[in-house]
């Protein structure tokens, strides 16, 4: 499923809700006004019809007369007044009126009241609301009609819409945008800690599986997810720990029997068999050592607090491997840099990395030649052998675990993978190139010493022993 944006969803949802809500609110207000208006109008015309009926009198000759109080008569006869009236006899003939025409008498089904609407100008702006009252005066039946002229509702609603757009509408839209903006801001603020947590989660790997996501600033809704991830990390770390312990223990436990085996090989009578077996046992021992080294490197922290001059470190490590080189009729030489090259590192990791590269070079350089180490102020250590070199197509692969270019070479296939891992952990890198004049050139690059506090002249390790 395509991942969706929470902000986008909230924006769309809120916009729709706001639109519907404002439509409902305005619609309701309008209808309510209409209804109230209509009810009021009806009540008014009806009351007035009754009032007029109350002023009707009849004499003994059956003649009807209407004596409206002067104010009332004035009100009905004023041409600007919206009200008008008429009194008709049973045949519908006008008996009295206020001077202005009223609608035709509506048909009475039953009862003595009839409310009606009359549109004198068709689709025009005028509409008349009226009440007709049938009343008995003496023995005569009379009809009283009172009307109020009003605006046609279609026109009224038009003007309401106009008012809505001109007066209320833009306010409403502004309000909508402000609300949206505030909502988006709130959402962004709420998910900011999640972004922070994501960045932290990205940094978690096998070497720092002890990191847990912070739960103190997480929104309540996300908390279960974060807690679940944390407890998953707990279980994974435990698993990792078990696996590491197993690796370390297994490799560890193999060492004593290997010692016995090696000692027994040393006592064999046939030197040729002994030498072949010794090669095998040594190969096995190397694998075991490398596995142990890997197990230990898994827990290598990334805080390096040892300050080392690469010249001295290279001399130490090369010195410890010199007997191995000389035993196979090869040599090692070290070209020091002019100035001390100081890096912040872990001597244990540095020894493991450089040692592996040097051992590899010793294996591949032909008898009678030397492995050459060069310390540069890049800062780097170059290891050059005079062997066949590494073909271009294999240069990236040789740093993969258990990959071995030449299966007969006797390496464990772990060495260069370990080197790669260590150099990455040390924030450096390793690559292989062709040495001038053939052979392999391994370059171990260390991070620039910018982070290393510069040592004063006195504290500096000596460049040469």
């Amino acid at each position, binding site marked *: 499923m395509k991942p969706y944006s929470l902000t986008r969803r909230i924006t769309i949802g809120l916009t729709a809700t706001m639109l519907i809500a404002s439509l409902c609110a305005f619609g309701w207000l309008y209808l309510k006004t209409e209804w109230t208006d209509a009810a009021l109008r009806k009540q008014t015309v009806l009351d007035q019809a009754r009032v007029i009926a109350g002023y009707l009198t009849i004499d003994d000759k059956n003649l009807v007369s209407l004596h409206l109080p002067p104010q009332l008569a004035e009100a009905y006869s004023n041409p600007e007044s919206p009200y008008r009236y008429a009194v008709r006899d049973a045949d519908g003939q006008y008996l009295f009126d206020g001077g202005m025409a009223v609608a035709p008498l509506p048909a009475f089904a039953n009862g003595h009241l009839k409310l009606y609407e009359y549109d004198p100008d068709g689709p025009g702006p005028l509409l008349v609301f009226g009440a007709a009252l049938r009343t008995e005066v003496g023995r005569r039946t009379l009809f009283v009609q009172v009307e109020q002229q009003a605006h046609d509702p279609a026109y009224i609603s038009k003007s309401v819409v106009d008012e809505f757009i001109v007066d209320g509408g833009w306010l409403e839209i502004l309000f909508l945008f402000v609300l949206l903006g505030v909502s988006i801001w709130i959402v962004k603020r709420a998910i900011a800690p999640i972004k922070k947590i994501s960045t932290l989660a990205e940094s978690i790997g096998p070497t720092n599986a002890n990191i847990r996501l912070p739960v103190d600033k997480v929104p309540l809704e996300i908390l279960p997810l974060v807690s679940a991830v944390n407890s998953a990390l707990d279980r994974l770390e435990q698993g990792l720990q078990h696996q590491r312990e197993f690796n370390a223990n297994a490799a*560890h436990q193999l*060492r*004593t029997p*290997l*010692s*016995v*085996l*090696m*000692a*027994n090989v*040393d*006592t064999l009578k046939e030197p040729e068999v002994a030498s072949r077996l*010794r090669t095998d*046992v*040594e190969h096995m*021992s190397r694998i*075991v*050592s490398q596995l*142990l080294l890997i197990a*230990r490197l898994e827990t290598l922290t990334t805080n390096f607090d040892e300050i080392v001059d690469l010249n001295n470190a290279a*001399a130490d490590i*090369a*010195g*410890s491997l*010199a*007997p191995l080189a*000389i035993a196979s009729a090869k*040599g*090692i*030489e*070290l*070209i*020091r840099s002019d100035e001390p090259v100081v890096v912040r590192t872990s*001597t*244990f990791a540095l020894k493991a990395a450089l040692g592996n590269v040097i051992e590899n070079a010793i294996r591949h350089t032909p008898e009678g030649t*030397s492995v050459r*180490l060069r310390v540069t102020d890049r800062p780097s250590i170059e290891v050059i052998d005079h062997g066949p070199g590494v073909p271009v197509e294999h240069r990236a692969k040789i740093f993969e675990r258990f990959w071995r270019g030449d299966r007969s070479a006797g390496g464990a296939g772990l060495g260069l993978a370990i080197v790669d891992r260590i150099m990455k952990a040390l924030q450096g890198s390793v690559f292989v190139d062709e040495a001038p004049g053939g052979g392999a050139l391994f370059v171990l690059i260390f991070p620039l010493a910018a982070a290393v506090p510069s040592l004063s002249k006195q504290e500096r390790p*000596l460049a*040469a*022993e």
Partner: protein
Amino acid sequence: MRILLIEDHSRLANSITKGLVGLGFGVDTFPTAGDGLDAFKSMAYDAIILDLGLPDRDGLDVLRELRESDTSAPILVLTARDGIDDRVSGLDAGADDYVVKPFAMKELAARLRALLRRPGLALGGVLSVGNLQLQTFSRQVSVNGENVHFSVREVEALELLMRHEGQIVPKGSLEDSLYGLSKNVSPNSIEVLISRLRRRLGSIGAGCSIHTLYGIGYLLKDDTP
């Protein structure tokens, strides 16, 4: 020379014993720290080989107890752990050297000899590498029992190389030992001395050779097969 071996793994103990006896050492083997310490108290050993993984006591504790007994016998520790912390704690507790399992008999013997070659110890008086011998008190060098004359500085350099046979001797160590703190040493005087020494060893038929590892140091190797 008597060596005390405290090792609980019986087959490994047997192999080590056999190997060391073959090289002319006398070996007493005990499988527990208790027995080993008892033996140590009742007899003077020239060196002690101690496995750190013992069934009855923590190896580092035993090491500390041995060291506190004020013996001059060097202690060589066998360990299956090679972590940097193990090494530091082992050396802190008084081990003179340590060998990580698995090891070749040759290496164990070489380390043991190197320890015993220290001044004042069993092999400290007479250093021998192949057919070359150096009497450290009389400063007399001999090949196959025949005395050969070497200059004072040559003997000094040879002694240092012989004490560390098979190991790198940094150029700086040679400079310190030969010229001390004197500042007027020509930069290539060590090279000149070593190349003269190498020529002379070749001419007198010594069964060992000096290897130069440019920028690292020198190494004396026993060439006897």
